[in-house]
């Protein structure tokens, strides 16, 4: 009952005209920057940061939060329409979302993404209200050993993602691993594969890799054949999802939300990993996995739900423990600090208006986002009618702006072009870029945590099996492996 009182109180705070206005500004801005590739929430929040000095704490944090989760909504738009991941977490949405657009189903894909995000946003918000502090403490149970086992499990499961040729898939994961380890090794401080370029010392950015592999490669491949790029608008079949679409997307949305909410709480994993994980899960659960990569609506709903759920629950460690788990949360924490508010276990008691107002505003923000995004679907789909010879230079331009804005470094543009060439070669070899991206994300995390866990255990490998959470992941990894390998061998024997 106390929760109910608190929520009512929170809505009272959030529904003041001022707070509503800032919430709207935040989510609208978030959608916009989510649509623009590379212009991420981090840069936007940093630019608006000084403005918040002159605002009271509650509207300031409501606006900044709106930008962050609003960007997760907008990020899917360009992924679906033009294979250009607008946000880190929406790279996975490219895989099936773009295929849906090619089949004239851009409308349902966009609407599904928005609705799945809304559902996930509501659940995520409720989770913060219900179990924020408990979940925060739970996140602290994850040490290096747990992360190692989790990554290992994810890597094993990633074999499911590869389509057709397993050898190709494995090769791509390994290639991704190699791209991922570029830069300074955390444990020794030595630069690896940096070839003397100081720009490579901090590694290759996610935006550079994702935009190069998906958008640039796609454009090059499209331009190759003259009549290619059939104008999709010609065969757009309905803007809204059909009843069947909704039925197909319902459970994946729920599962994506659950998984995303868990990943969001864990510092250092974040939305990107959660959307990969749910995608793999859905593909494994699907009756016909071959539909994935060819425009399966589950492949849009699940990752979109996951990344939005993760975006909400990522606030938990920041609000309840005062831990900045990502650069964006560090910025939010700084904004709170400059307002004289110490985020931490006491914030719920000391500043109930801030905590409950923010929680309520998140729900309102999610609602605003759906209201904002659904009518836009028709507009976005019309964009596809633009002749490709005009569309592609603008996409390339946005790729460049986005990549440049991440670190204001022209080097990233050259790198993106080179990765675009690599992506084109992959298209020619009929290789999927997704496993490469996954290797890129998981590889460095796995290596880092494995070495850290062993360093802490003074070289004793049993640490992965004596800690309960870690053991659970290890068992799961073995199970996934068995489930995958056994049927394959059985069929081979029969033939």
């Amino acid at each position, binding site marked *: 009952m106390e929760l109910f009182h608190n929520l009512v109180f929170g809505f009272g705070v959030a529904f003041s005209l001022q707070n509503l206005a800032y919430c709207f500004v935040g989510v609208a801005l978030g959608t916009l920057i989510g649509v623009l590739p590379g212009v991420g929430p*981090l*840069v936007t*929040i*940093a*630019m608006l*940061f*000084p403005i918040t000095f002159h605002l009271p704490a509650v509207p300031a944090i409501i606006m900044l939060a709106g930008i962050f989760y609003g960007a997760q909504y907008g990020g899917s738009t360009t992924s679906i329409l033009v294979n250009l991941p607008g946000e880190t977490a929406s790279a996975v949405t490219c895989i099936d979302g773009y295929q849906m657009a090619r089949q004239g189903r851009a409308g349902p894909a966009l609407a599904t993404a928005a609705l799945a995000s809304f559902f996930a946003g509501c659940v995520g918000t409720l989770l913060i209200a219900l179990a924020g502090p408990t979940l925060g403490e739970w*996140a*602290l*149970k*994850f*040490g*290096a050993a747990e992360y190692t086992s989790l990554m290992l499990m994810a890597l094993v499961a990633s074999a499911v993602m590869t389509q057709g040729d397993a050898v190709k898939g494995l090769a791509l994961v390994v290639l991704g691993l190699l791209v991922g380890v570029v830069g*300074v090794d*955390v*444990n*020794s*401080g*030595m*630069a690896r594969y940096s070839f*003397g370029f*100081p*720009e490579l*010392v*901090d590694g290759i950015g996610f935006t550079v890799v994702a935009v190069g592999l998906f958008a640039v490669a796609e454009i090059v491949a499209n331009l190759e054949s003259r009549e290619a790029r059939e104008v999709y608008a010609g065969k757009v079949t309905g803007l809204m999802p059909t009843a069947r679409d909704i039925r197909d997307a319902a459970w994946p949305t729920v599962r994506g939300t659950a998984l995303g909410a868990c990943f969001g709480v864990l*510092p*250092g994993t974040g939305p990107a990993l959660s959307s990969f994980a749910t995608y793999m899960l859905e593909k494994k659960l699907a009756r016909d996995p071959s539909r994935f990569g060819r425009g399966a609506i589950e492949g849009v709903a699940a990752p979109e739900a996951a990344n939005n759920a993760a975006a909400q629950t990522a606030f938990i*460690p920041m609000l309840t*423990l*005062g*831990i*900045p*788990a*990502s*650069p*964006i*949360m*560090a*910025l939010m924490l*700084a904004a709170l*600090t*400059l307002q004289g508010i*110490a*985020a*931490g*276990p*006491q914030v719920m008691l000391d500043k109930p208006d801030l905590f409950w107002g923010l929680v309520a505003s998140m729900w309102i923000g999610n609602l605003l986002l759906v209201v904002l995004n659904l009518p836009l679907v028709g507009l976005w789909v019309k964009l596809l009618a633009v002749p490709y010879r005009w569309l592609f230079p603008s996409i390339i331009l946005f790729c460049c702006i986005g990549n440049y804005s991440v*670190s*204001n*470094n022209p080097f990233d543009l050259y790198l993106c072009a080179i990765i675009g060439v690599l992506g084109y070669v992959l298209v020619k070899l009929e290789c999927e870029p997704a496993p490469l991206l996954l290797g890129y994300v998981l590889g460095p995390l796995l290596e*880092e945590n494995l070495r*850290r866990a062993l*360093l*802490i255990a003074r070289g004793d490998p049993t640490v992965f099996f004596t800690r309960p959470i870690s053991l659970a992941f290890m068992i799961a990894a073995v199970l996934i492996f068995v489930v995958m390998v056994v049927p394959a061998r059985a069929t081979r024997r029969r033939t």
Partner: protein
Amino acid sequence: MQNSPIMRFLALALLACAAPSALAQAPYPVKPIRFLVGFPPGGSNDIVARAIAPKLSEYLGQQVVVDNRGGANTAIATQLMVNSPPDGYTILMNAPGHTTNPALIKLGFDSINDFAFITLLGKAPNLLVVHPSFPPKSVQELIALSKKRPGDVNYGSSGIGTSVHLSAELFQYMSGIKWTHIAYRGGGPGLVALLSGEVSLYFGNFPTVIRQARAGRLRALAATGLKRSAAAPDIPTVAESGVPGYEVSTWWGLSAPAKTPPAILARLHKETVSALNSPDVRSRLEELGAEIIASSPAQYADFIRRDMAKWAKVIKAAGIKSR
């Protein structure tokens, strides 16, 4: 012919071309100034720069634009400034990476001679914090325990060569003990590891860890400044608790390319010091646990030289390889 519109236009154009030399006498600055920051938005460097920039803009009568060029612990932004013309239109925020990088990575510039140091803006101590379950209650007890069990204590850091890491290396170097270093990617994960007890010990940046210490989730043993911090006068310094002379600070300073005209440097120094004295900037820096220094250019250059020599020694003794 002489008075044709084209000729008149050409004459005007010529005059316009000649104008810059005539305007050379015009007071600096005549165009916006680029303020390079070696970290992405959000960190303390960015916060300090964005607090100072509006005041500087006001006093100089030109926009001072913050330009975040993160990477290689400030080396990328620094290289960019060194390559810029020494005309006062590019300035740089220096950070501890400036004095530690020379011993850690190969740089395309000379960390002393390629710079005109303007002022040391301020300093903030780090805080030696431990997990509440870790027995030592003081620096003395910590040293005693570490001597008894060499290599047994795990300390976390936000990465090799960061001030969090080097604070611990200096501590071991000066007190003759040995810990095991567990590196994390950034301050956030490093702090999480300490809160969960994965590591026992951490030299955190002041504003981040003081809250946790106040909430009782961490125990603060000592601050790394030479004097006690005004923001936490109850916490002793490392130097007064058994490691005399120990000092590490996170600091922020302002520099321009070498060969920038002295008049321009003097103007920048004067306006920056005024900016530092404004209540806005002052409160922003105090939130970061910082003490405002506003040193003279000579004092700042001297600080850089001493700091560089100190870290070269510590990094060598700690066996951290340069790359």
